[in-house]
């Protein structure tokens, strides 16, 4: 009875604020249309036959096909290995820069986040140029042409390079906040250095390690560009098979069924990460500043760690340097004379794609970041029916592999009332809703640290919801907004897995160009495209930083 009156009062209040009500409804509607509806379509199509009746045929034929079954296990295998090794490399960097006094720390930190701004599959391209049939190192130096770049190990190594920054940033945060005084306490109680590491630092970083591995697992599973270049026909993986099923065999049902197989492990791991591991954190941040000299490792170990970091740093830099070099030579591996012809070719053939890519990225980025902030504000500060559902579904698109989303979009937006195929809008919507979760998460994290009384004060001074958001909340979470902006821009510029289904003759992307160039063996041209792409990304970050006077750092633009 009493509760009923309170609910009535609450609803009355919501109705008195039409803007808030409207915003919530629009957000729910757009999440339903642009995240849930495509997923539903994938399920629906995979479960019907040609006549439109319910049928498990698509799953059955996928199961019967040994090649498809192999793809499923291969995907999980690569994802598992990438998660393990990516975490290890990330931990090596994070531990070394936080717990030793080695020189060149700034250099290592930069190298460890560098792969974020590069299109992920550039690693694969470069890997072939270094170790492939005409590889600079294998063939050029050692004269060995059959180095096994294609398949499990090649793919895994490239994915580790592409995705370990995620591990580094998370673990850097974890290890960086473990107070050195805890180690002091362990030493004081008689532990040696190894015991202090094993009994204090390692157990305290377990939640970070687990969370990192799950995120890497999702990233690797969803990866499309690297396996397309590197997996090869002997090592099928799901994301590529689903794509080939649709674009090569015109079998939408089979593609959708494979997409579901790809989706399920991702969702399971995502839920594990969010609701199980994500909750376990050791808070060691206290008000007192802790000053302690770093003494976690002895001299030999310190230099071993330094050597390990240096090895990976050089490897990573070589990978990216190869791209730059490749862009300026005539024909990689055969004619290494320097030239600018590749760039001339890029501007002749690909100017349209470059401009399209910029247009799409610059349109989707601000919408994505702003929407992320609005949703973060609603999630943290407002009570309304369906809040949990909104949180889950808006973060969901982080867990859904791009391939699945791409297939979902072509299935969902091919017919009226949502006929969007071939338009700019379909790409923009796709990017907005795929890259929004990072904005939401960093917005939520930052807003949780902001005293709610500050916004309440604004209300009591006469501000309505819109004014509170624009005059108080947004200025307070502006770092999250700009890191969301950078993240969304970088991702939009380097996107491939979903986008490859959505590009058309009218709207094309540089990433798709890079793939098709390298597919037809024009490696130097692919490199030139990559260099242009990287230049645009760096230019955007540079301009934004200039604008913000260095108010945010690259390491902030990650999942918190």
């Amino acid at each position, binding site marked *: 009875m009493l509760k009923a009156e309170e609910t009535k009062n609450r609803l009355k209040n919501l109705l008195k604020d039409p803007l808030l009500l409207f915003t919530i409804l629009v957000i729910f509607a757009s999440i339903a249309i642009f995240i849930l509806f495509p997923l539903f379509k994938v399920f629906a199509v995979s479960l019907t036959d040609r006549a439109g009746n319910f049928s498990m045929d698509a799953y059955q034929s996928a199961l019967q096909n040994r090649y498809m079954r192999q793809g499923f296990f291969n995907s999980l295998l690569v994802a598992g290995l990438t998660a393990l090794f990516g975490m290890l490399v990330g931990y090596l960097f994070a531990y070394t820069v936080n717990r030793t006094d080695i020189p060149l720390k700034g250099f290592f930190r930069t190298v460890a986040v560098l792969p974020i701004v590069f299109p992920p599959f550039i690693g694969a391209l470069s890997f072939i140029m270094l170790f492939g049939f005409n590889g600079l190192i294998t063939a050029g130096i050692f004269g060995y042409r059959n180095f096994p770049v294609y398949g499990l190990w090649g793919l895994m190594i490239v994915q580790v390079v592409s995705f370990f920054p995620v591990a580094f940033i998370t673990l850097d945060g974890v290890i960086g906040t473990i107070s050195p005084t805890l180690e002091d306490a362990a030493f004081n109680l008689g532990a040696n250095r190894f015991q202090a590491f094993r009994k204090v630092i390692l157990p305290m970083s377990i939640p970070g390690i687990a969370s990192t591995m799950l995120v890497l697992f999702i990233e690797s599973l969803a990866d499309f560009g690297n396996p397309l270049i590197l997996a090869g026909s002997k090592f099928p993986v799901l994301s590529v098979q689903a794509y080939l099923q649709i674009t090569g065999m015109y079998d939408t049902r089979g593609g959708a069924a494979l997409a579901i197989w790809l989706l399920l492990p991702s969702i399971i791991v995502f839920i594990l990460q969010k609701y199980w591991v994500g909750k376990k954190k050791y808070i060691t941040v206290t008000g007192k500043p802790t000053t302690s000299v770093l003494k976690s490792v002895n001299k030999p170990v310190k230099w071993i760690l330094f050597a390990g970091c240096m090895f990976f740093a050089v490897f990573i830099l070589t990978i990216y340097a190869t791209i730059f070099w490749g862009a300026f030579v005539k024909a990689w591996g055969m004619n290494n004379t320097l030239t600018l012809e590749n760039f001339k070719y890029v501007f002749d053939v690909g100017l349209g794609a470059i401009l399209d890519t910029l247009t799409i990225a610059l349109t989707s980025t601000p919408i994505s970041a702003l929407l992320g902030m609005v949703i973060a504000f609603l999630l943290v500060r407002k009570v309304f029916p369906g809040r949990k559902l909104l949180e889950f579904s808006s973060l969901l698109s982080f867990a859904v592999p791009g391939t699945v989303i791409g297939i979902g979009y072509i299935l969902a937006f091919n017919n009226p009332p949502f006929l969007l195929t071939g338009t700019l809008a379909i790409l923009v919507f796709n990017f907005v809703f795929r890259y929004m979760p990072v904005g939401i998460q960093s917005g939520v994290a930052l807003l949780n640290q902001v005293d709610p009384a500050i916004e309440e004060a604004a209300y009591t001074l006469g*501000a309505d919801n819109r004014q509170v958001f624009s005059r108080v909340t947004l200025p307070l979470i502006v770092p999250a907004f700009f890191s969301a902006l950078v993240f969304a821009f970088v991702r939009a510029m380097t996107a491939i897995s979903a986008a490859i289904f959505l590009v058309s003759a009218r709207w094309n992307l540089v990433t798709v160009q890079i793939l098709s160039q390298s597919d037809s063996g024009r490696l130097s041209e692919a490199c030139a495209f990559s260099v242009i792409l990287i230049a645009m990304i760096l230019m955007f970050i540079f301009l934004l930083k200039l604008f913000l006077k260095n108010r945010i750092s690259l390491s902030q633009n990650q999942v918190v």
Partner: protein
Amino acid sequence: MSLVLNHVRKVFSAYGGETVAVDDFYQEIQPGQLVTLLGPSGCGKTTTLRIIAGFEIPTSGRVLLEEKDVTNLPPNRRNVSMVFQSYALFPHLSVRENVAFGLKLKKMNRGKMQQKMQQMVELVGLKGLENRRPDQLSGGQQQRVALARSLVMEPGVLLFDEPLSNLDAKLRESMRLEIRRIQQEVQITSVYVTHDQVEAMSISDIIVVMNQGKIMQIGSPYEIYARPQNAFVADFIGRVNFLEGKLTSNQNGVAHVAVPSLDLSIVGHCSPGLQEGQAVKVVLRPESLSEEKRSRENSLTGKIEKFVFLGSSVEYELRLPDGELFNAVTFNPVEQKLPTVGKDVQLHFSTQSAWVIPA
């Protein structure tokens, strides 16, 4: 502006259970009054304040501002302003911009805004600091900005949510005098939440003592301290001794109480409604007892267990014949001799200071 809380009730449901945060709160607040909600943490005082502000929606009951029902109005349309424990200044705005924040939303013209802002900054004693950012101010200065920011809106009711608890003890004392001075100067109806009884005593017209969501007593600081209606209020405000007994007679508020455990008969005061034969407690404040007899009608004896010399006073702990402990305090000890532990003393107290409440 007058403020009425008409049988307000707030129930929170959490973890399957329900907690009554505020239970049947009724109070009329007259224009210009400063009413303090006082009670231990979790007593519902902050929830009540947030219901007035509009941040919480009552489960039942109404909030009336100047006889207008505002229960369903959002905070920004209530003409109620709030000063927060954490100051809650806008960190990205200067002092000037903080104070002008609400005026700007009202679209006040620039000249008038400037003038009001200046006037308010002077009232709270922040002249010359207008261009500072909040993080360049001390805690006390920040709270002055918060006060100015609220006052400049000329709200119908000003709410204070433990505004001084983040300040150090000295500053707290001077700030509460300052708040009272400004409140009386602008004659603004105020509701003030605190758990600090000294703070409540020193600034309030009316104190509402709350416990577990319920109002325990409403009264002036004097009434609350000297004439508590129940053991909770007596115990929560100041230090107290209770003697348990039976009311033998009540003649228009003059009470005779038999205390069998000490074989005493005490003459005190009580509310006229107390029934003869009822079980009662005699409320005795430590400072009402003295070794000097003069015109004090009542007395009791006890053995000194220990004492603490505090400079301006000495606090005793006595063991009464029935084994109970009893607190007493004497002032200006330098003039007298310090007590001796283990010694029996006889202490006297007057009829006025023996207040009898129902047990």
